[in-house]
């Protein structure tokens, strides 16, 4: 079989993993952040990454959408290798949506503008079409009425929901959530979790880093526990929370549950 040209996107079918992570290593100088991570995310699956604080989990998410380069290993997103110097980063990022802990909304534009900007300037779609989509998304995250509010005028939970809508506007195939409720007041955490759960119920593939164990137990198909850059244990939530095998897992769970 002749090898395909370098820039051709290999054909991907839904029976293959949407995100395929194989033996990913990454270090900041001498400090090893990721020491060989391997797992798959199938289409429609929800994977939750939990574990003690440390850069590993958030960094892994950033490796998936090529915000951070990896040293060794392979990440395939819909068959496209991320660890490839010739990677078309922009094409990759159109397929992968990311929501951050600090929301990172653009403070000088209204909520609606924040959602509309990327589809118009990146996807080059028609403005009226995008506006309709953006308004629909704001309704979906239950923020209709706040379209012309600036991020500074919104609460943390509201800002985070706008951030989710902003990523959804690009109609990605997989969503990455990086501890999105960690910076929120407890009252507003719930509204964001409800929004994410609705997304999950609609079939969105999600990779979620979180400390919210109850939420993880509810939505995840698989839970991965990482510590110091490697996957210690994983399993479906029911099994994971009640019958964890590794002592490190049990110690972590006993500290937070």
């Amino acid at each position, binding site marked *: 079989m002749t090898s395909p040209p370098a820039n051709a996107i290999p054909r991907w079918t839904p029976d293959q993993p949407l995100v395929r992570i194989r033996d990913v290593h990454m270090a900041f100088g001498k400090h090893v952040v990721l020491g060989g991570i391997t797992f798959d995310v199938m289409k429609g699956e929800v994977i939750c990454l939990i574990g003690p604080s440390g850069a590993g989990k958030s960094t892994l998410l950033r490796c998936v959408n090529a915000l951070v380069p990896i040293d060794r290993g392979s990440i395939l997103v819909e068959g496209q290798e991320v660890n490839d110097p010739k990677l078309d980063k*922009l094409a990759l990022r159109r397929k992968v949506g990311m929501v951050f802990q600090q929301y990172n909304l653009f403070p000088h534009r209204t909520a609606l503008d924040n959602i509309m900007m*990327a589809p118009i300037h990146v996807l080059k779609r028609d403005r009226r079409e995008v506006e309709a989509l953006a308004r629909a998304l704001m309704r979906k995250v239950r923020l209709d009425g706040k379209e012309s509010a600036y991020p500074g005028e919104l609460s943390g939970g509201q800002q985070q929901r706008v*951030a989710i809508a*902003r990523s959804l506007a690009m109609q990605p195939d997989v969503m990455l959530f990086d501890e999105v409720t960690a910076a929120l007041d407890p009252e507003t955490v719930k509204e964001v979790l409800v929004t994410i759960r609705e997304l999950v119920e609609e079939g969105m593939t999600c990779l979620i880093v979180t400390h919210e164990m109850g939420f993880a137990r509810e939505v995840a198909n698989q839970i991965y526990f990482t510590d110091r850059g490697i996957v210690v244990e994983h399993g479906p939530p029911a099994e994971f929370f009640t019958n964890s095998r590794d002592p490190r897992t049990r110690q972590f769970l006993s500290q937070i549950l």
Partner: protein
Amino acid sequence: MIAVRPGTLAVLKPFRLAGASAPRLRLSTRHGALLAIAFLLAVGVGDAQAGPGPASILATLLKWTPLLAQGFALDIAMSFLAMGVGTVAGVVVGLGLISLRAPVRGLAWIVTQLFRNAPWLVMLFYCMLLLPFELHIGGMTIPLPDWVKATFGLGLPVMANVAELVRGAVRSIPFGQWEASEALAFTRWQTLRMIILPQCIKRMTPPWMNLYSILVAAMPLTSVVGVSESMTLTGDILSSEGRSELLVPIYLYLLLWFFAYCYPIARATAVLERRFQVR
């Protein structure tokens, strides 16, 4: 010139340079009053010294005011021009300072360091003496009068300072903004144009206005290199009048003119700084 640092210290409050004392408005009229009192005293003393005969100091000053105003107008015009040209060039160099390409960054750094760290008077001499007195472009001959060379000479440090302002402002934008736009597949240029630079404008405005104040205060330097502006004219007035008791009043008068122009700018800068305080 003086950069305000946003509140980065957890315990210590933000470092607000323009001062946050509340009753500022009342102080301003008092400053002006004090200055005016000093001025009138000087005039009075001068008049007492002159004795009877020659016209009073105040009358002399009023007589020469239109001429002085012309000189001052040239100062302001040069400052606008130098600031305008310098700002445009400075933004370009500033973008070079944050370029991803090392040679561009290096060149921009050299330009910035060179023109920021050279004394302004030396820059002026450099430009006055080493720039040609006329340019030959194509078939045209463009004369370069002294004030144009001086304006260019002062535009160079403005450019370097604005470049540094731009770099500082871009660096002060939280990294999350870059991450979020990258994640949304914006190109670097799109990110700069639509997200980073618009947020920079607010942060840059108070120090930019401060720079303008300093530029205006540097205008009399051009008199040293031969431009006929308010400082030169003051000297001319003194030599034509030939009265030593005019010395103190006329220099105080000139100082008053500059104060009257710069002080409102300083106050407006302080107000804007408070309003744009980075949270």
